[in-house]
């Protein structure tokens, strides 16, 4: 192999990997079904990548006895959360270990499993089997200085996200909405 061809192989493979990351995300955005999810922004700021917001979705914590599907899960399990439209936000209807055929499901990874949770209204720990799930749509980078604005919405402001879910269960953030109005929208370039 000549020097030129060896360098070309390296450049080609590394470029394809990077382009593949973009293509996969764009394919999900273009072909996915849009769903609007209720969220709470928390913990902004990245060390050297500018501001970002971490979202804690309503479907990030799933109460297993209120959902259809499987009941037994372990940490790091890949799961599929079946979504159904609600007014105004989509919500979880069932949770499965395997992709449910013919249904719109968002793929996630179980972060932890717990049998009890803290109820802030009663101030007590209650028996409630639940799982915490990460979907890969939790981080959203915004222009410098705007992360803190999103972190602390003013009274009456509701933040939600329009997420595209493709047929493999991958999710991608399409737009960030404040009170249902688009604030940021994702484009290819």
């Amino acid at each position, binding site marked *: 192999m000549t020097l030129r061809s060896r360098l070309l192989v*390296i450049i080609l493979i590394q470029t394809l990997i990077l382009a593949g*990351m973009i293509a996969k995300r764009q394919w999900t955005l273009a072909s996915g079904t849009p769903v609007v999810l209720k969220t709470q922004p928390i913990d902004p700021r990245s060390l050297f990548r500018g501001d970002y917001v971490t979202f804690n979705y309503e479907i990030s914590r799933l109460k297993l006895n209120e959902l259809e599907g499987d009941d037994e899960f372990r940490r790091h399990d890949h799961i599929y959360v079946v979504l159904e439209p609600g007014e105004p936000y989509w919500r979880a209807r069932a949770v499965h270990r395997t992709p449910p055929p013919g249904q719109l499901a968002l793929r996630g990874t179980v972060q932890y499993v717990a049998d009890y949770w803290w109820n802030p209204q009663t101030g007590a720990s209650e028996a409630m089997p639940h799982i915490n799930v990460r979907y890969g749509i939790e981080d959203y980078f915004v222009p410098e200085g705007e992360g803190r604005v999103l972190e602390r919405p003013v009274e009456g402001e509701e933040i939600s996200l329009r997420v595209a879910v493709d047929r493999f269960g991958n999710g991608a953030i399409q737009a960030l909405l404040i009170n249902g109005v688009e604030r940021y929208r994702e484009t290819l370039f």
Partner: protein
Amino acid sequence: MSFRKQLEQRLPHWVEQGWVSADNADHILQDAAAGERHGPRYLALAFSLLGVILIGSGVITFFAANWAAMPKLLKLGVLFSALWGSYVLAGVFERRQLPLLATAMLLLGVILFGSNIMLIAQIYHISAHYPDGVLVWALGGVLTGWLMRSQPAMVAGLGLGVLWTGLESQGFGREVHWPFLLFLAISAWPVVQLRWRIALHVALAGLLLWSWFAFIAMSGWDYHDSAALYLVQVYFLTYLALFLAGMLLQGRGDAQALAHTLQRYAAFAALGCLYLLTFPDLLRHARHDHLAWWLITLVALLLVVALAAWHYRRTAGAMRPPFLNWGLGLLAAVLVLLLANLAAERHLAALLALLFNLLYFAGLLWLLQAAVHLENRALVNMAFFFFAITLLARYFDTFWSLMDRSLFFMGGGLLLLGGGYWLERQRRRLTRQIAGQREGRA
């Protein structure tokens, strides 16, 4: 004035005086010139690598300062052109016979590949399982190192691989991160083929670190769990097998340096495991009838026996050094004791510990003999290190509760002073002997 220039001025006078022959004067000058080339070469490499780090840091801080103001397309343009540019420059420098700058550019390419993964993830809001990104980065480094025959790029790839397994094992609490072994096998192949010693150090250090993470995950550090005991035995056998592989590799003249490195890491890990088995506390764990552990131990044991037999066949004959013969006896005794330990009752822990201690100290003596024969000074130092810490450990175990505290500390002080002096003298004697052997052969 450089040493070579001084020699150039003085040597004609020395030749004239008859102190040095004209032929020898030429040889001395050539040697001094080679030494000068050797010195600045490393200096140039150090400067080149420093330059790469500075450029990499500059790229990151530039993006941090201007990122928000740049449109997406421009961001992508900057990222891809920087990546391609560094590799193209590496090719240009390689063609112009500037290998150090070419190496530095390759390393910059590997750094930029990783920063591009992170920055593209940021631009497109990809918040996947982030150790996956580190793995892709590591593989990019390994690919660059392998294809371009660049040890620094391979070292970077291996280091990132170790970071990946650390994140998976510790950051995300995986039970045992087996995929790292596949990564290591893929990366180690070119390292061994190309005889890269620094990369081999990183790979073996990574293996040791991984096995430590796996040990934590599998044993759970539960005092009442027998997994820790079984694991220590399996680890000991596995690293003993690796040491024997190093001895087999030693037979191949062109791989002696790699064999030495392999022997060091394997001996360190194997001695560490055997050291743990000298403590009665570990041997008091209840042995549950875990068939799987028995089978794993037997497989590791058979591997050791097979490698020892292979080595015996290769060295059989009149020239076979005596330490190999009594080493075989020692090996047989250790293997029998390990098997007995699997089935032993807990109340025999003290007796087992005594036997393990005897074999451990015999093993250290064998290692010293082997180190002299294999001309591996690091093994001499290691054997003395383990000897010293075990001596102290036994002193604490034995006398802590028996002697008055002040006597205990005074005795310990005397042991440290006297033992340290004696051990250091012996260590220096053996390392001088190895150096003498090498010089004699040269």
